[in-house]
């Protein structure tokens, strides 16, 4: 008797609990939908979240709208966009230009058509960086590596031969010193080594009909192979060593054991905090111009904006508001990166930022096609093998192997 009684009470209470949950949940989704309908949701990474919040607020109050800025890990912005639920999806994202190919191939972002006047203020290479058949992003900031010279310990080199001489002399001048401080590590780092790669006339993909062609690989082109013996010489005289990894590279420069450091604007503050007085220049021309890889950051409109009924607002924010030179200048000040807009670039006051902007001249945007994924690993490995020290592989062989492997991967993928 007692058990039946318990059963009924139990069932009743559970039903009550379930009903209460039903009521609660029928209220909650309505609330969240309202939130999405009336505001623009933006995904930004930690570095730029404060700057974006401020600018989004400015735009929102000027238009009588609301903007919701959500902070995410930088890589997560690209990855989560594939799997996010439509109700939680962003309308605008801050993206690196080399995601363009992948995001466009996945159909997750929409083509943009900004006004001609706005586009004129963006350099051609930055526009191209976000182009994958069509323009998919509005560039807002530029990033590139350059040569940081510790002016107290060494002089700015006039040309490559000068750099070689000075760096090696610096290395001999004390124990534990390195000549050219550029990070690789056992996994390799093709990005940081790119100025040296392009200086020897290497390139990644050739183009056909205005688009990058993954079948035209320039990793072991004839000109580069001819110049590759210079790498063997550098390895023998100890100019470049692949044993240096990211942390070590920073340590060496900030402790005065390296006077020539190839790194990017993310380390400007690090060097300043360590009390180093430094000048930033482009790596001097070796056989061809030693241009760096350019990273362009920009804003993209996702395909979810239309389903959230904020497509017009999203396009207005990205194509009109953020294209203005005043917006981009504000972003620069808060963000520490060189602006894409040329008018804003003229207003940059920070010396190091100006120098690194100048050092980007002629730079090559990282290829934004999905095939680029197959290049990083092998290109980095080729450098590691060729600059290992005593048991290094001859550079010509190392890069030819790399080119062969990359071709196989691109074909297989």
């Amino acid at each position, binding site marked *: 008797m007692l058990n039946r009684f318990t059963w009924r009470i139990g069932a009743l209470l559970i039903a009550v609990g379930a009903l209460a949950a039903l009521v609660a949940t029928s209220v909650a989704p309505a609330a969240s939908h309202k939130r999405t309908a009336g505001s623009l949701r933006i995904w930004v990474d930690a570095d730029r979240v404060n700057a974006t919040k401020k600018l989004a607020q400015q735009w929102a109050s000027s238009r009588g709208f609301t903007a919701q800025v959500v902070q995410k890990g930088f890589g997560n912005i690209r990855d989560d966009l594939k799997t996010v639920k439509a109700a939680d999806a962003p309308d605008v994202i801050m993206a690196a230009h080399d995601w363009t190919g992948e995001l466009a191939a996945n159909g997750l972002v929409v083509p943009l058509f900004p006004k001609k006047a706005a586009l004129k203020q963006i350099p051609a290479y930055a526009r191209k960086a976000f182009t994958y058949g069509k323009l998919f992003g509005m560039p807002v900031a530029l990033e590139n590596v350059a040569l940081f010279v510790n002016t107290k310990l060494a002089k700015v080199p006039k040309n490559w031969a000068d750099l070689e001489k000075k760096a090696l002399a610096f290395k001999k001048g004390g124990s534990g010193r390195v000549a050219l401080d550029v990070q690789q590590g056992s996994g390799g780092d093709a990005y940081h080594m790119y100025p040296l790669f392009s200086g020897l006339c290497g390139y990644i993909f050739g183009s056909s009909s205005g688009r990058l062609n993954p079948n035209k690989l320039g990793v072991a082109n004839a000109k580069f192979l001819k110049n590759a013996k210079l790498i063997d010489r550098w390895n023998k005289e100890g100019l470049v060593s692949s044993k240096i990894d990211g942390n070590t590279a920073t340590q060496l420069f900030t402790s005065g054991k390296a006077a020539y450091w190839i790194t990017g604007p993310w380390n400007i503050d690090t060097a300043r905090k360590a009390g180093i007085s430094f000048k930033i220049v482009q790596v001097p021309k070796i056989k061809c111009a030693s241009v760096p890889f350019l990273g362009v950051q920009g804003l993209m409109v996702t395909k979810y904006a239309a389903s959230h009924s904020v497509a017009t607002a999203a396009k207005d924010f990205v194509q009109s508001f953020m294209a203005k030179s005043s917006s981009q200048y504000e972003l620069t000040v808060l963000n520490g990166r060189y602006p894409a807009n040329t008018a804003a670039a003229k207003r940059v006051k920070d010396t190091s930022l100006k120098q690194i902007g100048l050092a980007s001249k002629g730079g090559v945007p990282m290829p934004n096609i999905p095939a680029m994924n197959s290049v990083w690993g092998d290109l980095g490995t080729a450098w590691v093998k060729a600059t290992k020290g005593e048991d290094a592989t001859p550079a010509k062989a190392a890069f030819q192997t790399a080119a062969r492997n990359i071709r196989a991967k691109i074909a297989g*993928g």
Partner: protein
Amino acid sequence: MIPSRRRTDLSNTAVPVERAPTVRAGGATSLPTRLVTAFSGTVGLVTKIALLAIFNALVVWALEILAADGKWIPVFIAAAATVTIDVIYLLPGRTPAKFLIPGTVFLIAFTVIPIVYTVNIAFTNYSTGHILSKPQAVDSIKQFTLAPPPSGKTYNLTPARDENGDLVLLLADADTGKPYVGTTEGLKPVDRSTVKMSFGAITAAQGYTAIKGAELFDPASGLDKQLDEFRVPVGRGAIHPEGIDNAVELEPTLRYNPQADTFTRISDGVVYRDNGKGSYQTAGSEELEPGWKTYVGFSVFSRIINDPLIRNPFLRVLLWTFVFATLTVGLSFALGLFLAITLQKQFALQRFYRVILVLPYAIPAFLTILVWGGLLNDDFGIVNKLLPWGLDRPWLFDVWWARVSVILVSIWLTFPYFFLVCLGALQSIPGELVEAARVDGAGAWQVFRKITLPLLLVATGPLLIASFAFNFNNFNIIYLLTKGGPASGESSIAGATDILISYTYKIAFATGKGSDYALAAGISILIFFIVATISGIAFWRSKALETLR
């Protein structure tokens, strides 16, 4: 192994038996007793119903979300399971089921369901370019292939309403400044005198009221969507608003035929057909992007078997994974056991040594592996600096020394675990057995081999198998220490220290067109079968050790 005449009854000395709660002298009860009496009767009943109510409320919430997504099979399964669980807990008796349900629920939720999903993905083409559903892909293609015509114009836009309150576009040619009115019927030029312009855009026009910004963005007005979908037909395409102040003339470059399910390029008539593998493709191999996610049968598995890029390193990597896991577990167990035996006897600093020997296990592995990566650096790491002249090695840069380094670091990480386990297990070996053996004249090594070790293996056998399975898939140490490198001579993807799981990761995410989830899922299934087979055989064989009892 143990001579049968030595079989001793160990049943009452094997494991310390949990003492039943006892009432001590003076009426004071132990904590377990008090808890049991407190939760009997009404209090227990109420607690049980409250917990069940909360559980049901959560399930109802989940069912609502699933139903909103239209996933009816999970709804049905979850509802049926919840009702079953409620019934079992409310009815009296059925005690075994009541104890097993929480574990079973978690097993299904966190092990079985992910496995089912992985198997499902392995039969699709889920990868970069194949994320969307087919209708979404068709829509995207239609949108992405709109292009400005050769002499296409752009306009400065001002949204407005006509006398009937309908939405129209007041357009001013961005180059010439000529004003127009755009409606869903078409483009109509207007007289310059009837409009007011400023900065190349129309600010006011006769017969129309410009829409103020606030109204445009008001979500209740629905104007955002209306404006986004507004089209002014012109030429072969239409004028599309882009934002609130810009409009562009675009025309389609592909034509979609819904009956034949093909796209035809307008300029030269090339036809794109559904190629059954998730994209539209020409007779040549030109594909339209984006594609869509679809089932492709066994093509992932046939690719693993047939593609030389994937197959060639597979055996080498498999062998190295076995070697790595076996050496790690074997040597760590040996070291842990040795230290446990050594530190069994009481001596001055026994506690101190026990503590510091556990430290490698206690500090987060992520940190320590990265630190080891720095310590083992050729030129700058302290290991090479401390070693006497001539003994320094290219720890992480040479193929074989990298393998040695990886094993040494993983032993460093694993031995404290076996040290602790062995300390405990050694206590459970009855002293009488050892004494009896000594009396019989057995030496220390014989005692160890014939008594201590077999009994120890009975207790720690499952742990060894589990540790082997863990190290078989120990992605962290490989990726953090060497990233799978250094590059071994021939193979392109697999480095010298790559184990199956890091190799899978590289294939799936660092080659071809980017992320290839389907391929990763396929290889994961293979790894599962390998590990499951080994574990199964190992458990079956370890039953032989059980007969010692």
